[in-house]
């Protein structure tokens, strides 16, 4: 067992040494892997940032409640009180028909025409902002159902379009990033596989002699699998470096944007588990690529 481990360590060190001896080829491969991995990682961060934004949509979605036209001011005040005390309502505002008309007049500019109206046709209305924890559309629908039971309400209008659209975009982006990641993984396997193929043919002589003195396929294969693994890990680290560089470049504009949304931070930060997953995926992709390449090319090399 100890010998087995020390053999593996030996292969690991000799592989690292060989990579160091051909720095340009290694750097090129690692950079390509890093850049290719950066794309899905960037998309992931963007989606995560967007989700955080959407989850904490600070009272943006509004619920507009229109009372029946014949509701008196005192009745309206009662209903308003009931709604205001609902546990998931953060803010509620009562708009009287007079206020509504004034607002309409100001917005529409139909000042003159409105003078011909005998009485105010607008009903009482209440504008509700749910608290941050109940800002998702499913919560809003639930709230709508609860409020609609209150006597005297004519209609309830949810202002869901914006959040719905935003969440739909996020969902599409998540799908897109999944497809993109899969395609890039295939591309990476091709790239790494090709690099490994070159390595195999460069070491043809050594492979022939190793097979000649009784080296098994798995012995001959081992260093190339490590090569693939290391390329993948280094590539993943490069992509993380590139990501933090990109985040640094975006810091200024993102800070301005964050200020607009009263948020301290907009950009999602990768956790340690996510970083580990990225590095492990790199290692796995590299290993698979090497495995594939070795399966295709090592058999061709036999002692002559």
């Amino acid at each position, binding site marked *: 067992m100890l*010998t087995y481990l020390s053999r593996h360590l030996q292969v690991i060190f000799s592989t690292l040494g060989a990579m160091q001896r051909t720095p340009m080829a290694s750097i090129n491969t690692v950079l390509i892997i890093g850049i290719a991995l950066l794309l899905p990682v960037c998309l992931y961060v963007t989606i995560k940032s967007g989700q955080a934004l959407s989850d904490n949509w600070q009272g943006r979605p509004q619920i507009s409640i229109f009372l029946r036209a014949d509701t008196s001011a005192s009745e309206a005040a009662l209903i308003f009180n009931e709604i205001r005390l609902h546990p998931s309502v953060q803010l509620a505002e009562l708009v009287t028909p007079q206020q509504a008309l004034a607002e309409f007049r100001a917005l529409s500019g139909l000042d003159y025409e409105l003078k011909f109206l005998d009485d105010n046709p607008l009903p009482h209305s209440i504008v509700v902002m749910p608290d941050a924890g109940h800002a998702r559309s499913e919560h809003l629908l639930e709230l709508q159902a609860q409020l609609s039971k209150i006597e005297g309400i004519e209609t309830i209008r949810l202002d869901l379009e914006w959040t719905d659209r935003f969440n739909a975009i996020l969902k599409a982006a998540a799908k897109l990033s999944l497809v993109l990641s899969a395609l890039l993984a295939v591309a990476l396997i091709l790239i790494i596989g090709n690099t490994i193929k070159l390595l195999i043919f460069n070491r043809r002589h050594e492979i022939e002699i190793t*097979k*000649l*003195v*009784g080296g*098994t*396929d798995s012995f001959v294969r081992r260093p190339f699998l490590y090569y693939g693994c290391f390329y993948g890990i280094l590539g993943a680290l490069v992509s993380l470096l590139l990501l933090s560089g990109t985040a640094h470049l975006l810091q200024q504009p993102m800070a301005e944007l964050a200020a607009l949304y009263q948020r301290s931070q907009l950009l999602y930060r990768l956790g340690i588990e996510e970083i580990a997953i990225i590095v492990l995926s790199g290692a796995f992709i590299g290993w698979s690529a090497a495995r594939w390449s070795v399966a295709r090319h090592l058999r061709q090399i036999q*002692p002559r």
Partner: protein
Amino acid sequence: MIKLSQVSKQYPNGHLALNKVSFDIPSGEMAFVLGHSGAGKSTLFKLITRMEKPTAGQIIVHDQNLSRMRSSKVPYLRREIGVIFQDHKLLLDRTVFDNVALPLIVIGMPNDEIRKRVRAALGKVGLSGYEKNLPLTLSGGEQQRVGIARAVINRPSILLADEPTGNLDDELSDEIIDIFADFNQVGVTVLIATHDLRQVNRLGSRTIRLEKGEIVQTEATE
């Protein structure tokens, strides 16, 4: 130990390298394969180490039928056979030590055991102290002896040598062949391909003479 019955080898290009060759070399024997270049000597060795498969006939090495051997078993066959090549087949970017140690590294032997064995093997071929040299800093005869040390390091039961004295002068040739004779003395089956009749006469071993892929004469001297 090495038994061929009616073995033929025809290459895809139509060249018939061996034609119905049969012989049996018992364990512990030393024999020479004689013949001009192109007579089929190298093909014979490639068949015995299963670098090639015969087109007809049976080869039994170490009680194993090579025609029926699965390719996953081939490495284990090769560990039983030490092969010495005319062109040495050394790894030129590795030290003498690493070259000789290779057959032990592939079987996963512990490092200190490898060091002991390499030192002993290099001592036996007269190359003590050359561990750290690169093969190209050595003379042809010395490189040949590195190849021998590598072939015997794993204590194989069979030694195959293809023109081991090809480019060497008489004195060096004698030294090399004597090394093989020493291994034969301790029970190793030795098969040497050569066109150096001087060595055959000197040792008086059995000879197998090949001409255009056919055995024209086998004789057991003594």
